[in-house]
């Protein structure tokens, strides 16, 4: 029983990370029909901000040495600024382009940022020592769980609730939801396109920063492609969750995370190496069963 609960907590924790990444992608897809591959760059660069830029093999912490609250605020601020700038420089000129062009734009941005990072930091993985306290295990009842799992779940729940309240209760939240349904109509009612899109990018940046810090605390190593596997899983999560539904994106993230962890636990040792293949077979099965994803965004049908 104890073992089972520990697996569950681990599954929710990994799922949380994927859910946060998926939300960042789902949000921009909803508002702009943009599949932002550069989200991986936001996550990677967010993690790299804590060290002093250099190509040296050993990392020197700078922001990473600050008090954790200050460090978190700084990383979030940097990634938010980065996300908003990329919108301004790359996606704003492509505003009226079709989704395929936007996707290519996001690839181009992603590669540019990747090579910029290589130029500044070099390509070697760098160990960093942050959040050491988070790796420790804590005992709750008979359970021994890593503190990072508790923190990840707590932060994810907080961000999910905050995002939900923002979208439901605030002016910009309502504008964003309206824009993701019918952008042109929203503009006819006075919704400012530039502002809504900038805010969406800022939130996407904030979510990416959260993923950066949580993921880095977990793995303890910086490497230039660190965001990519997370974002690929996040894409899968948004697709099986149902493109266009934020709730679906989060759910998809939890689902993929949970399935990976459970498979890791129950598969015989010899098969564990093939875990991801099995995860993706399940994903294909789900899409065959529900091609629209778990949460289907109903088109508003005309009723007479």
């Amino acid at each position: 029983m104890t073992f089972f609960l520990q697996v569950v907590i681990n599954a929710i924790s990994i799922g949380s990370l994927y859910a946060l990444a998926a939300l960042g992608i789902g949000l921009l897809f909803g508002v702009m029909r943009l599949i932002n591959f550069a989200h991986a760059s936001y996550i990677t660069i967010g993690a790299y901000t804590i060290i002093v830029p250099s190509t040296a093999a050993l990392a020197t912490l700078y922001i990473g040495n600050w008090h954790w609250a200050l460090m978190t605020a700084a990383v979030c601020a940097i990634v938010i600024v980065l996300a908003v700038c990329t919108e301004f420089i790359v996606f704003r000129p492509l505003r009226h382009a079709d989704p395929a062009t936007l996707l290519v734009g996001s690839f181009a941005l992603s590669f540019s940022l990747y090579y910029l990072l290589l130029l500044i930091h070099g390509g070697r993985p760098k160990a960093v020592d942050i959040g050491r306290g988070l790796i420790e295990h804590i005992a709750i009842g008979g359970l021994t769980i890593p503190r990072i799992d508790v923190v990840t779940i707590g932060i994810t729940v907080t961000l999910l609730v905050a995002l939900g309240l923002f979208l439901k209760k605030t002016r910009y939240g309502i504008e964003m939801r309206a824009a993701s349904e019918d952008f042109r109509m929203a503009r006819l009612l006075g919704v400012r396109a530039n502002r809504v899109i900038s805010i969406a990018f800022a939130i996407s940046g904030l979510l990416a920063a959260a993923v950066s810090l949580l993921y880095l605390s977990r793995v303890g190593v910086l490497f230039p492609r660190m965001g990519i596997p997370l974002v690929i899983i996040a894409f899968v999560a948004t697709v099986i969750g149902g493109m266009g539904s934020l709730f679906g994106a989060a759910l998809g993230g939890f689902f993929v995370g949970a399935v990976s962890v459970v498979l890791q636990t129950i598969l015989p040792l010899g098969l564990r190496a093939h875990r991801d293949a099995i995860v993706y077979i399940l994903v294909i099965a789900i899409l065959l069963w529900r091609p629209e994803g778990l949460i289907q965004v109903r088109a508003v049908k005309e009723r007479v």
Partner: protein
Amino acid sequence: MLAVSDLEVRYGRMAAVRGIKLDVGAGEIVCMVGPNGAGKSTTMLTIAGELTPHAGTIRFEDKPLTGTSVENVVRRGISLVPEGRRIFGRLTVEENLRLATFIRKNAREAASDLERIMEQFPILQERRHAPAGRLSGGEQQILAIARTLLTKPKLMLVDEPALGLAPMMVQLVHEILTELRSEGMTLLVVEQSLERALALADRIYVLRDGQVQLTGPTDELRDGEQIEAAYFGFQMQGAAP
């Protein structure tokens, strides 16, 4: 109040509107009527700022409107009820209405206007927290009109309000529009049906092939054969006996 002159709008090489001149005075209901493809909706969308004219000018309250972005046209006091209503189906009825109040400077006044609208249209009050997509077509049309009213427009553009509605709802929507006019609202309405336009408007513009074929006060046009000729595009005197 609104003065459109020599308006030309093109989609690529095709001219949808070819030199339209149109005026709307304060407190009038003016109808644009004409068959499909006459350029009615294009004219409407151009006034609303959705389309950029190729030539010609649009003036509103004696100031130029041409080149104003969509987001700012509504702030100038021109608000569109679009064809097909285009309510936000996943937002609740209340959120649809609140969205329209965000451009208002006086938030308190906007909030009390919202409550007044709810009283005025009890069906919206009843379904206040339901997703707007669940409303019937007629209810959605009422929501679309109410939403436009909450932007506090001086001029309302209404594109084919009767499209796809049951006859009883058409009647109701027309009553609402007429009542708005009697409260001092100015309306420019697109209608495809000549009969409905004659019943609603003070003045009529008959459009065909992107041009104004005929215009005049409804009372003068109602009994003449001229208007049908303009609408259908044939010469009465040339018609076979």
